[in-house]
């Protein structure tokens, strides 16, 4: 839900601090990553259909609990519904299509994961304006329509997710597209063998890729949180052709600036989604390591250039920089499962991806904390003007990308001893096949 919806929930719940509601988001991110990590192994055995049904029940159930929480003014029900239960549902819902699509498209893993994760981002394109529309529809003199919107969204998501879950088809064992041969013999960074879920965290590659995802997402979350206020405070009146600062604008002028900033946020969301399919598909040709090399190198240059674009007063340059950054943020999310499949094979890629998503949970805490702490410290302690308080933050975020760059540079093929033997693989495939046959 968008910022205006958050404000409405905030007002309805009569919460003193935005951080009280912010806990819902923290719990959401933590449980998203944790559930993907804990239930990923179950998904590989039970199949994506069962996982999809559980995800639909959790996500829709969480929205209904939240609706009840809003109705009776109980914030803890929002933490439970949208934070904990909804987070678990989304974690399972996130990894199940990725795991399935990678197995269907072993020749175009990046395109497959890009498509799955673009779909996840595309949901926001529908959900946010739909929530806005529903609240306007349900609004009365005595209600702003939030709990009714939660209920309606819960029902719509449940139907859509159940249709998706029952539409899943798992490829037959040993599936490969007609005429395609595995390329592992030619490319050292793509294996045709498989690492067991339990052995993956014992490899340095797992933790290096964890660092790659965590740093890319931390920097991205930080920049997403900053983009809109930064645009308003850095350019102020120039956004509406006036040569005054944001503080000097009238209420109407501030409203016009806020509308421009909202448009900027929308544009960033769109580019985040497009970046997922574009960069992930490109990684099939560039290679995963080179793709992340591009993200981190270009990212560092762009993060460090944003304050300069602000000082030049060039809105177009500033917007262009953030748009490219956001494509790489989305691309980072979408390319990581294909990177994992290249390093660890496809047998447990869903479960290993689930465990790697704990990096997202960590980034969901790290990114906002870094941005907020540095900003408060600069304004409150160093007395830096608000418009300039973002500069140091951007340099720190570029520093996070440098750590990610080093992690990516150190990624090498997995050592022979970590791969499953043919007997172990056959036993795992039999187990997965038996479980999925029983569920039909």
């Amino acid at each position, binding site marked *: 839900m968008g910022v205006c919806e958050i404000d409405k929930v905030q007002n309805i719940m009569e919460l003193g601090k935005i951080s009280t509601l912010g806990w819902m988001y923290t719990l959401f991110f933590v449980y998203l990553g944790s559930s993907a990590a804990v239930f990923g192994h179950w998904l590989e055995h039970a199949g994506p259909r069962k996982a999809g049904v559980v995800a639909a029940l959790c996500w829709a159930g969480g929205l209904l609990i939240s609706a009840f929480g809003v109705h009776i003014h109980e914030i803890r029900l929002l933490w439970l519904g949208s934070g904990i239960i909804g987070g678990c549902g989304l974690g399972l819902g996130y990894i199940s299509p990725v795991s399935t699509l990678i197995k269907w498209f072993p020749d175009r893993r990046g395109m497959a994961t890009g498509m799955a994760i673009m*779909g996840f981002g595309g949901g926001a394109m529908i959900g946010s304006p739909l929530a806005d529309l529903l609240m306007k529809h349900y609004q009365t003199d005595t209600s702003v329509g939030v709990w009714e919107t939660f209920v309606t969204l819960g029902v719509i998501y449940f139907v859509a997710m159940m249709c998706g879950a029952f539409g899943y088809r798992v490829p037959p064992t040993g599936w490969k597209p007609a005429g395609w041969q595995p390329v592992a013999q030619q490319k050292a960074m793509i294996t045709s063998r498989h690492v067991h879920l339990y052995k993956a965290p014992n490899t340095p590659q797992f933790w290096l890729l964890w660092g790659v995802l965590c740093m890319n997402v931390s920097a991205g979350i930080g920049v997403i949180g900053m983009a809109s206020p930064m645009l308003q405070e850095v350019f102020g009146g120039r956004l509406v052709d006036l040569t005054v600062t944001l503080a000097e604008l009238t209420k109407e002028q501030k409203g016009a600036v806020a509308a421009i900033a909202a448009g900027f946020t929308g544009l960033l969301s769109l580019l985040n989604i497009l970046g997922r399919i574009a960069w992930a598909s490109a990684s099939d040709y560039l290679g995963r390591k080179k793709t992340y090399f591009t993200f981190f190198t270009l990212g560092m240059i762009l993060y460090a250039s944003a304050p300069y674009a602000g000082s030049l007063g060039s809105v177009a340059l500033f917007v262009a920089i953030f748009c490219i950054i956001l494509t790489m943020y989305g691309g980072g999310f979408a390319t990581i499962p294909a990177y994992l499949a290249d390093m660890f094979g496809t047998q447990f890629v869903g479960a290993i991806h689930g465990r790697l998503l704990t990096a997202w949970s960590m980034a969901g805490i790290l990114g906002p904390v870094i941005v907020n702490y540095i900003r408060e410290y600069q304004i409150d302690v160093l007395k830096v003007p608000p418009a300039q308080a973002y500069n140091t933050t951007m340099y720190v975020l570029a520093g996070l990308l440098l750590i990610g760059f080093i992690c990516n540079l150190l990624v090498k093929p997995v050592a022979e001893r970590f791969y499953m033997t043919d007997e172990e693989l056959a036993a795992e495939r039999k187990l997965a096949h038996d479980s999925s046959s029983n569920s039909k």
Partner: protein
Amino acid sequence: MHGTGDNNEWHPSQASWAMVVVSWVLVGIPLAWGIWKTLQKAAVLFK
């Protein structure tokens, strides 16, 4: 799309293609609406 598994050739059925088309229509229409709404909002930035 067609290919091979361990034991035999695999081809999608006509029903599978029909489901793909219906699914894309059901997802594509609200997605296009969402993108359109986002672009309308973003257009303010370029005025």
